[in-house]
């Protein structure tokens, strides 16, 4: 299981939880796991999110690996000028 940290604004969709444990070996599975656990997260994830895995901010790659002890944070999607 991987512990995923959410930004606190998402508490309304996760029964107040800001961390969610999911079964995942990559970023895509993290996102699918989150939606499975809390379906209300689906529109947020569909609108676009980034995932930080051990400090590396992954803007789009679903195949990036995640280990059980990885530090995983869901972030709002990054863009730039």
């Amino acid at each position, binding site marked *: 299981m991987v512990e995923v940290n959410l*930004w606190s*604004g998402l508490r309304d969709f996760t029964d107040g939880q800001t961390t969610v444990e999911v079964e995942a070996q990559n970023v895509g599975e993290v996102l699918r796991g989150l939606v499975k656990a809390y379906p209300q997260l689906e529109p947020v994830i569909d609108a676009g999110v980034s995932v930080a895995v051990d400090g590396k901010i992954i803007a789009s790659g679903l195949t990036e690996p995640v280990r059980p002890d990885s530090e995983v944070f869901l972030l709002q999607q990054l863009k*730039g000028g």
Partner: protein
Amino acid sequence: MGINEKITSDFKVVGTRPNRPDGVDKVTGRAKFGADAYAPGMLHAAIVRSPHAHARIVKIDTSKAEALKGVKAVVTRADFAEGLTGENWNILENVMASDTALYDGHAVAAVAATSALVARDAAKLVEIEYEQLPHVTDVDKAMAPDAPVIREGAADKSVPEGLHPNVVRYHDSGHGDVEAGFAEADLVIEDHFKTEATHQGYIEPHACLAQLGPDGKGEVWCCTQGHFNVQKVCAALVGTETSQIRVTASEIGGGFGGKTVVFIEPVALALSRKTNRPVKLVMSRSEVFRATGPTASTSMDVKIGMTKDGKITAGKGVFRLQGGAFPGAPMEFTAMCAFAPYALENVHQIGYDVMSNRPKQAAYRAPGSPMAAFAVESVIDELCNQLGLDPIEVRLKNASKQGTKASFGPKFDRIGLVETLEAAMAHPHFSAPLQPGQGRGISCGFWFNHGGETAVSLALSEDGTVALSVGTPDIGGSRASMGQIVAEELGIAYESVRTTIADTATLGYNEISHGSRVTYATGLATIKAARDVVKKLSARAAAKWGIDEEAVIWEDGCAKPAGPNAGEFEPLPLAKIARSMGRTGGPIVGHYEATPEGAGVSFATHIVDAEVDKETGQTKVVRYTVVQDAGKAIHPTYVEGQFQGGAAQGIGWALNEEYIYGEDGRLQNSIFLDYRIPVASDLPMIDTVIVEVPNPGHPYGVRGVGETSICPPLAAIANAVSNAAGVRLRELPMSPPRILEALEQQAAKG
């Protein structure tokens, strides 16, 4: 094999300063920009824009315009695709209004005619009946209970109940217990800050030449930061297939985020489809100001606690960003960047995305971050002043470093903030004496940077030279950097590489040139494509020598046997392999397609001295130093250029530039005379220090540099001005009337 399997550090070409390959074109007037394209049979277009801030479109009568001699077509919203959803709907609504004009300058119709003059005349003959609606342009007023609603139902589910419908997105993040943190502090300061919207201010107005035939095949020539995005959006908005629209990016006369957006290309395509002729559409400067990309304006509250010895105990920020009549103000970046430079145990940030009757905000260099730095770094400066602490020592004491839990959540990888602070402290500027009337300000700044979808191709010519095709428009000299990278990897002369921005039919999808991603991501893809070429060259040499491919190495532009065991062969230079490639297996082309993740965040520290004339309220920036982590500077001169350009734009934002709306909700300063960007006589030389703390996510250690340079200036200048004037300035721009008002208020207080 990971993307970082070979980390290079002993460079021959990378780190040097060769002349840019497009230099001669650009000093002779030969370079072709957006408006420099002409086609046989071409028509000229003009857009009809709303003169109202908010109005229902009751009726559009095009008959008089159509009757004018030379007019070939008029289009309205009815000429675009129906049934779009999500961001495509938002883009179309901005490109051409449906039933409501949402801001002064919103496009309502467009005309194509045989000359630009006739098109402009015809635009005036399009008769539109409006029913004016109440409007709002200020961020705080747009959130107030009595504010007119821009669009019901625009808010997403993140918005807490009870907020005005104009609040369309919400962000809340942080960690620890800020109240406990404030209780530990010896001094807590809370302040309110406001910044006005500014425009990216590129000197080249948006321009395009487009053609769309009855066969559904289209061509677009335009100035854009991302032609693959133009292709995708145009296809959706005019209702055709993406691959049938071929887009070529012209030279681009500045973008800074503002040309990541599609405004006119779908309009030109719709007019072309109606007339079956090429259509050229060029915005006027006033259209650029009224209808394209300003930044968000902000209203912010920041509270920070500090101990007597300079430790920050807690930070809290509330950031309200107005982003025009559509969702998308980058409040989450404002929130996430605000406290990123500091290692805080207790931090809490809240963001609101607020709609108003203004043009749809667009990215501008590190969108959202400069405003956050302005508020946070002003409070830190005030804390330092009141506690009698050195501003750099305090920042060093609290600086984020590798392993720090960032204010936005995860732990930082290798970062270079401490190195920029130390370099700033060691710089002669920091210890130089100030003249009477002058004040010094410093500030840190942070930006995430970005990778993104990237595809490049590298083709060898028979004479041993190389054509590199990339899909990211060159907005700051990237063709020079890419040429250096190819020369470095292949061991050939920089001059033997020609880099082209290929059109959308030539390469796979390339994300926009944004997020400071080009030198990082296109550079990484270029390294990989060059290594692909090396592999193929080595295979040809191996075949010739009758040895294993693994027994060949590439060194100094030649294939060589890896060691004595591989056999005794004369090194084979690239040009020799290239000459016979047609007979040894065919053309040699290297390529790479990926979405590199690992852009590496970046930090900067700026030092500025400002002189305030207390009689007139006029501020002069007298000395400016930029210190920034570039990871690895491929072409140091262009890195310096990014540093200097970001600082100059920040100076304009801090001191002069602002969108001024009248009571009627119309923009009052839509030309460069009234929207005053810095001119040569406003600025000093801008000193630069390139710090190089390698990014672990890039084979050379490159970090993006384009955006971070605009993060510290607003705060650094505000701190300098406040220290010079003896009164804290909390609102941007710090124009002479604002400074005089602040001085008067302080005098009244005694």
